[in-house]
């Protein structure tokens, strides 16, 4: 024997309304989710751009920072980096978060050197890595003069061509 449940007209209307309300809520929730995901994505992009911009400005001004700039003997070189000072900076871990960077490398271009600089092979080496917190980076670079005190020929300041590479903090 088959029984059919018969709803009254009022009950049907309430059910309809409940479904419509559910549909409205789901629609608004979806719109909100799409909006939030787009906003978050834009925000992430903006933050990334700002960090790259910050890294570019840091690179541009780094050779003038007291920790890098060459001040001894010649005071008229705005893009000269004192490598003797940078080698001392390499041993100091306090500076790791100082410039808001995830990567900071100084590379000698000419004359070419080989390998990471240590107290044993310095100054006949290629790179000095000061900060290396990420392998995924977009780096900004700037050409600089890399200067150090050379004990030969009575001692003088010898400058070579190099580049600074810096990458902003990753997200």
């Amino acid at each position, binding site marked *: 024997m088959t029984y059919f449940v018969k709803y009254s007209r*009022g009950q049907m209307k309430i059910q309809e309304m409940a479904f419509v309300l559910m549909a409205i809520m789901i629609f608004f929730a979806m719109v909100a989710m799409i909006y939030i995901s787009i906003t978050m994505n834009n*925000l992430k992009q903006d933050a990334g751009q700002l960090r790259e911009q910050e890294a570019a400005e840091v690179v541009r001004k780094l*050779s003038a920072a007291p920790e890098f*700039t060459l*001040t001894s003997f010649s005071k008229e070189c705005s893009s000269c980096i*004192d490598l003797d000072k940078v080698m001392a900076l390499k*041993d100091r871990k306090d500076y790791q978060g100082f410039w808001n960077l995830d990567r900071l490398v100084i590379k000698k271009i000419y004359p070419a050197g080989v390998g990471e600089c240590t107290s044993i092979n310095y100054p006949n080496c290629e790179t000095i890595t000061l900060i290396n917190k990420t392998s995924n980076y977009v780096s900004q670079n700037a050409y600089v003069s890399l200067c150090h*005190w050379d004990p030969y020929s009575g*001692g003088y300041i010898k400058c070579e061509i190099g580049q600074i590479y810096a990458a902003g903090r990753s997200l």
Partner: protein
Amino acid sequence: MNRKGFELSFGWLFAILVGAVIIFLAVYMAGKLVSNQNQATNTETGKELGILLSPVETSLESAKLSSITFPRDTKIGNMCSNLGNFGSQKINITSDTGVGGGDDAGIASTFYNKYLFSSTIVDGKTLSVFAKPFEMAYKIADLIFVWSDKESYCFIMPPREIEDELGAMKPKNIYLVDVASKISNCSKSSKKVCFANTNTKCDIQVSMASKAVTKENKTMYFEGALLYGAIFASPSIYECQVKRLMKRNSELALLYAGKADNLGAKGCSSNLQETFVSYANHSIKVNNSRQLKDIQFEAVDIARRNHDLLCQIF
């Protein structure tokens, strides 16, 4: 008599109630979204401002003047903390967007290598930014002095070097008066900075002899470019930045000690390592600007000894 009246069915009541909840939620969410958007914009602006302050810093120049204009009236919060190895400079922005109340301050951006000297809150559309290197034997950092288009300063009888420097750069809203009796020439709203007289009308009193600046009933002591810092900054900001500068000075002294070691290994001994370490220890212990005088005394001695070296450390 008609007794039938208006009857609200359950359906109507339900629809009104749910409709009201939906409308309330929609208005609340819209308000929240606008507020969050304002906060995000202000946070980005704060970071951008910090980045914009980098090109303002000096390399070989003795001073640099720039201006930064915002699209609308903006409040810049200058917060200084001396926790950690270098302390930190935090900048936050509250910009009046005209939508949603406009008091959603952005999240503060943190910088470790910047030293901003200003009031706790700088309010205006255009900022004047003046940078000068701070040296104690060697350059420690660039000091950045900031004031807005709503603030003005009147320097009464400044010393020759300040008069020349400001006269050459002509910073906005800074006026120079060379005769003490002409204090009335300063606009009423300007902050009067007196160098040689103790007029009651002076807001800021500078004594070049004792290297002291009295402002808001507090005395701050200065060396070199910190003079401007003491004039433009709130006393609490000034004292905090002095401690941060001394922390950086200490780190730099240790760096130079390391460099002296490296040069010694190359056959160029300076015998300055211990002096640098002692200088670093004294610098990090500086608690207030009054102690700057002792550090300056040591700095002069180190500079003299470095100058006489065959291979100079700085």
